[in-house]
């Protein structure tokens, strides 16, 4: 019997120890443990406090611009000739991606805890920009760790963060990418536990982060539910979202996990192809391990050394994935597929040409899968894809890839 057959709910996790099945947990150094427990207590308290909720909703509405529209992508649907495709337009948020939803929640929590300094890691720079933004707005000093390799390929976001007053610290340790940026942020935190709050950007890290980030991102799915009922009088038939760490996907999926009729699909980055070894598909090409405070699927060698992820999208090339996704995979509730760089580029072009929306390379992976899936589905099938980020930041990378010289 599969885990799925034994369960009638998928929304009660994590348990008190932060476990989603065998995944999750709190695998951190002792120095951080008391602080992790403090964050957990503070968050438990905050989520029950109506004043915290009101404050979060106020800024979500007036600063971020929520709710984001649920938009019927008519021309894309026509072009694909199948399902009715809707976009959840989180690329319209202030700062251009879903990342701000989480940053807002965490910085309000940091203020509530009396923390006076913020640190964060970033890959593509979308999370870094969102953190730098809320730090400017709430007047807290901010240090963003970013891999040297990522700094090179995401210059516009590096400049944005600096404009916003953040200190961007290049990370050269390890391989100079997102995983190393997270290592450096954790090292900073260990040395500055008393005044510092670490705003983790995805549904990973030690408990309570996977739960907390999911909760802050769940506004995406909750709005989708309400909006789809308004638009079509029923729930969507399927959901599609891209996955690096998995926060936009978790946010869209979570409010639908207990709706058995809703098919849910997560799309990992297959890079040059999962079979080539150059990819970021932890669930499709990795195995369970322990990194950055939690047990989850990881890209690793036979010896348990972490391997670098690769993707055309800097926001997806993380060698792990949120532990709740690992659990949902094994429980069989969510399907996890992958899309290559080349497929994502096609999705990027298709969306731009048919809808006049330049998507980020991250949701371009979701678009690639929608392009495969939608034509196989009937015209009354309601498919929602999370358009979690806009593509301005990727224009240079795409130009380079397509052989255009715009610099």
């Amino acid at each position, binding site marked *: 019997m599969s885990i799925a057959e034994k369960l009638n709910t998928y929304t009660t996790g994590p348990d008190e120890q932060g476990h989603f099945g065998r995944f999750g947990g709190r*695998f951190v150094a002792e120095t951080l443990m008391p602080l992790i427990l403090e964050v957990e207590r503070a968050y438990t308290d905050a989520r029950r406090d109506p004043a915290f909720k009101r404050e979060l909703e106020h800024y979500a509405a007036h600063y971020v611009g929520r709710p984001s529209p649920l938009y019927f992508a008519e021309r894309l649907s026509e072009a694909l000739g199948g399902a009715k495709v809707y976009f959840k337009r989180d690329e319209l948020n202030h700062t251009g991606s879903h990342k701000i939803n989480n940053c807002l929640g965490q910085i309000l929590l940091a203020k509530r805890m009396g923390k006076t300094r913020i640190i964060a890691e970033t890959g593509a720079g979308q999370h870094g920009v969102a953190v730098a933004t809320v730090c400017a707005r709430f007047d807290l000093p901010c240090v963003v760790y970013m891999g040297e390799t990522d700094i090179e390929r995401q210059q516009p976001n590096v400049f944005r963060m600096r404009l916003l007053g953040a200190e961007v610290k290049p990370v050269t340790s*390890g391989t100079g990418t997102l995983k190393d940026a997270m290592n450096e942020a954790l090292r900073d935190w260990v040395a500055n536990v008393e005044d510092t709050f670490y705003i983790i950007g995805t549904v990973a890290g030690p408990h309570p982060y996977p739960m907390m980030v999911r909760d802050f991102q769940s506004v995406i799915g909750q709005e989708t539910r309400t909006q789809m009922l308004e638009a079509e009088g029923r729930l969507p038939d399927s959901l599609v979202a891209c996955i690096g760490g998995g926060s936009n996907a978790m946010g869209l999926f979570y409010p639908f996990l207990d709706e058995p009729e809703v098919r849910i699909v997560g799309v990992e980055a297959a890079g040059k192809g999962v079979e080539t070894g150059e990819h970021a598909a932890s669930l499709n090409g990795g195995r369970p391990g322990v990194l950055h405070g939690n047990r989850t699927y990881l890209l690793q060698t036979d010896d348990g*050394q972490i391997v670098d992820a690769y993707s055309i999208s800097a926001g997806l090339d993380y060698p792990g994935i949120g532990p709740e996704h690992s659990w949902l995979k094994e429980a069989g509730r969510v399907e996890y597929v992958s899309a290559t760089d080349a497929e994502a580029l096609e999705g990027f072009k298709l969306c731009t040409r048919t809808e006049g929306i330049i998507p980020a390379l991250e949701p371009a992976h979701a678009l690639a899968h929608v392009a495969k899936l939608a034509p196989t589905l009937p015209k009354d099938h309601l498919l929602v894809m999370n358009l979690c980020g806009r593509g301005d930041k990727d224009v240079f990378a795409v130009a380079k890839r397509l052989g255009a010289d715009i610099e």
Partner: protein
Amino acid sequence: MSDAAVATHLAQTRLEKRFADLKAAGRAGLVTYLTAGDPDAATSLEILQGLPAAGADVIEIGMPFSDPMADGPAIQAASLRALNAGMTLAKTLDLVAAFRQADREAPVVLMGYYNPIYSMGVEAFLARAVEVGVDGLIVVDLPPEEDRELCAPARAAGLHWIRLATPTTDDARLPRVLAEVSGFLYYVSVMGITGTKSATREHVAEAVARLRRHTDTPIAVGFGIKTAEAVREVGAVADAAVVGSALVERVRANLDEAGKARPGLADDVLGFVRELAGGLTA
């Protein structure tokens, strides 16, 4: 462990015997940390074999990991050097086996992160660790909250579980940290990563006094201890001083431009160990 306990504990382990002997001799011990396979397996073994004679009382061997999140630049670099030279967890255990062929006395403690162990399989790892003569484990990313993972099976297999206590481990939390500790308690004297900041003498003395109110387990103090003078100061209040990054830096200082060991690397590192141990005579 108290004197009475030592007397009644017939099957005393190597680690317990070492701390009992140190106590009898009226001096503190020197715990040395070096990363397995840094800069290569042969040199690493050569250093290890010389450590007891050079004055190391307890030998910590780092299990290299690609993402050592609690370590500073020195030990990060050592890990990468070892991994680039082909080191693995299996070969780390082989290294201990090779060391044990000539030395049955010196306590050996493996220190590192959980993932390589989890990847090998807890059962297989513990069986091999016991077989080759490992005495204890320090796994940085396994706090008491995750004791079911490795602490419980390791203790059942007869290995010591050496816990880290830090300045953030307050009196309310301390009993939980001490509950399953055995062999010795490793006090991390600074909030931070290895090889960076150093604690003041006053902080160390106060912290050790606080820990002693809670436990009889020997207390080793580490992080930021880089000189014979610092070893002497820590040795005056704790049961042992741990030196890691400074030793690893000594390895690095003896590499040529291609990152290979220069002749005399092991002798130089062992000379430094002798110098560090010199401060601890009774």
